[in-house]
């Protein structure tokens, strides 16, 4: 059984802020390195980590900028320590090059993006959901990441632990797309008994260094990860590399490497993607919402169901991989879909791409900075429904 440090958050029931829950979850997942840069509304995570990491023997450092932060996180992870950073929109944009670096070198890491109103500096203290597409497509070239969409304090806690597990299992960068409402709200948190918490660590090579000739073996999707200083003397390269880790310009080397990097996640997407369905069995109208917006959307479903309107909620819990197969199935059973999000249309594109041709899709955007009240979504649904 995993050993848990005595100073970790003990199992029990808490009333806790989302950002603090994020930090405590990271510590329970085994994170012992944090490098970050102050940015509202994620600062509570950094501040809490600076206080708690020395207590559990970890290291906290506030770097000179977000680029330095994410790169230091990758360095720490390369040396074998689970590492994370937390930021918001502007910092997330700065980190994009390093998303590619993490993907190319297959170094596990976790970024918590407490989304805020944008674009640009926007409204630092208020909510936004404008980074959905950037999480997947922000960096150049081909790669895959995993991104979670928590909708409550409990979820941000569970998903942070899961983010670390997935990062270690798939040697990929995972993102927790929290938002300012979830990050700053204070809500119920149940920390289960430690035996019930699954913790996954990266697979280490089980052969002696002389035998590890091909650390980047393309015949298996995920290879064990040699750690710096363990004696394997591997060349990790951000250049396209062959199976020994040496840079190469060969066409077949390039194709094999890049396709493996994306297949790693794509071939496992059905195991990774998660979603929640609320009253979708007989729904004629489907609401699609995520994060804090889903809380309002759920209220709308409850209210309209009392009037016997057949409405359901599809709530993706992973933005990436997007549960497109389920989206497709549900879209065939309904006549209208309303996508509610705090941006000018991001998950809307995914809904359009994967839905059946003849379903009517309506967008319910809301002003960046504010969580749409249930009445706003309700009015749009009624307008679409004609009731």
């Amino acid at each position, binding site marked *: 059984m995993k050993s848990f440090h005595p*100073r970790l958050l003990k199992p029990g029931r808490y009333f806790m802020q989302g950002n603090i829950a994020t930090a405590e979850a990271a510590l329970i997942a085994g994170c012992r*390195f944090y*490098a970050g840069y102050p940015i509202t509304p994620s600062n509570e995570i950094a501040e809490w980590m600076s*206080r*708690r990491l*020395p*207590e559990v*023997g970890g*290291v906290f*450092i506030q*770097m*000179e*900028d977000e*680029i*330095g*932060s994410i*790169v*230091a*996180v*990758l*360095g*720490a*992870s*390369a*040396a*074998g*320590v689970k*590492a994370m950073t937390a930021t918001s929109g502007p910092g997330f944009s700065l980190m994009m*090059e*390093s998303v*590619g*670096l993490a993907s190319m*070198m297959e170094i596990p890491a976790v970024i918590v993006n407490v989304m805020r109103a944008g674009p640009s500096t926007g409204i630092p203290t208020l909510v936004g959901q404008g980074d959905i597409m950037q999480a997947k497509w922000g960096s150049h070239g081909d790669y895959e990441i995993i991104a979670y969409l928590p909708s409550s304090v409990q979820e941000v806690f569970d998903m942070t632990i899961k983010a670390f597990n997935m990062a270690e299992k798939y040697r990929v960068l995972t993102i927790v797309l929290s938002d300012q409402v979830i990050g700053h709200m204070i809500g119920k948190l149940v920390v289960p008994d430690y035996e019930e918490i699954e913790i996954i660590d990266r697979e280490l090579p089980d052969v002696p260094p002389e035998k590890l000739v091909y650390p980047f073996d393309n015949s298996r999707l995920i290879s064990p990860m*040699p750690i*710096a*200083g*363990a*004696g*394997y*003397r*591997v*060349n*990790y*390269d*951000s*250049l396209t590399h062959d199976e020994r880790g*040496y*840079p190469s310009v060969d066409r077949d080397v390039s194709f094999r490497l890049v396709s493996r990097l994306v297949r790693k996640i794509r071939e496992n997407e059905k195991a990774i993607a998660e979603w929640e369905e609320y009253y979708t069995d007989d729904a004629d109208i489907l609401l699609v919402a995520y994060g804090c917006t889903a809380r309002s959307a759920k209220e709308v479903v409850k209210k309209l169901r009392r009037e016997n309107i057949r409405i359901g909620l599809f709530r993706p819990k992973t933005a990436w991989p997007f549960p497109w197969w389920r989206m497709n199935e549900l879209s065939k059973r309904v006549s209208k879909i309303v996508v509610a999000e705090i941006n000018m249309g991001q998950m809307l594109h995914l809904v359009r791409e994967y839905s059946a041709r003849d379903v009517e899709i309506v967008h319910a955007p809301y002003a960046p900075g504010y969580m749409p009240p249930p009445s706003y979504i309700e009015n749009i649904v009624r307008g679409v429904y004609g009731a």
Partner: protein
Amino acid sequence: MSSSDRFRLREFAVTSLTKYYEGLEQVIRTDRMPHIFCPGCGLGIILKGLAEAILKSGIPINRHVGVSGIGCTGRLPGYLRIDAYHVTHGRAVAFAVGLKLANPELEVTVVGGDGDIVTIGGNHFIHAARRNHDINVIIVNNFIYGMTGGQYGATTPTGSYTTTSPYGHVEYPFNIPLLAYASGATFIARWTPIHYAQMVDAFLQMFEHKGFAVVEIIAPCVLYGERNRFPSYTDMVKYFRDRCVIDHEADLRKIGISLDPKEPLVIGNFYKVRRKTYEELYKELIERVSKEGAKE
């Protein structure tokens, strides 16, 4: 060149290295030889010198880690048989900081060019120096961005002709030892590849030093030379041989490089001081917290 020629060339390189350079084949990836550096490039010599220093350092090779950015110099750790991380442009120092903090037992050496470390990577460089992380930084200064064809960088001397300053460069360059000193580095040296023994000695001192160690190696580069008074391969190294002056007590403010034929090029082991490193201070912090208890 056919692939059989390339194979024969590799055989020569392997035997050449093993026969003479005692033990260097343990530290140099002979399966990647010959290297890609141009004729007249100082990097082949620096590679040899660094390999020799790693062997002589007394630190087990498994504990050495090389981190580099993008550029010709960035290719160097890939030719060494150590754990090497070839990261994105300018970010090598930040990556090295993460490595060292996660595992302070590692001997982390950043190898980068002037463009990578002090131009795009300037911010990470000055802050890591300020914090006095116990890492080593070898800056190979060839006054130009070589890999991309010869554009100017932060150390290009005023008046130089480069591909992006075809009418002559109008900027003032950095003085790397002064920059390192002002940022808080605790070991500063500058040598050239032709001062081979002193260069290897500086590397050894760098490995031994606890604190942020910066060794600047002024290197010849054909791309810079052919446009700026050094047309043939040996002109720049001849200039180094004739104009270099070793002065360990030099005033760092006065040792900027202009590559002027009348000015001396001052090299030496300029500065060494022992100050608590970030890793030591943070370790003390952890011990203090576990004794005194958590902050309420």
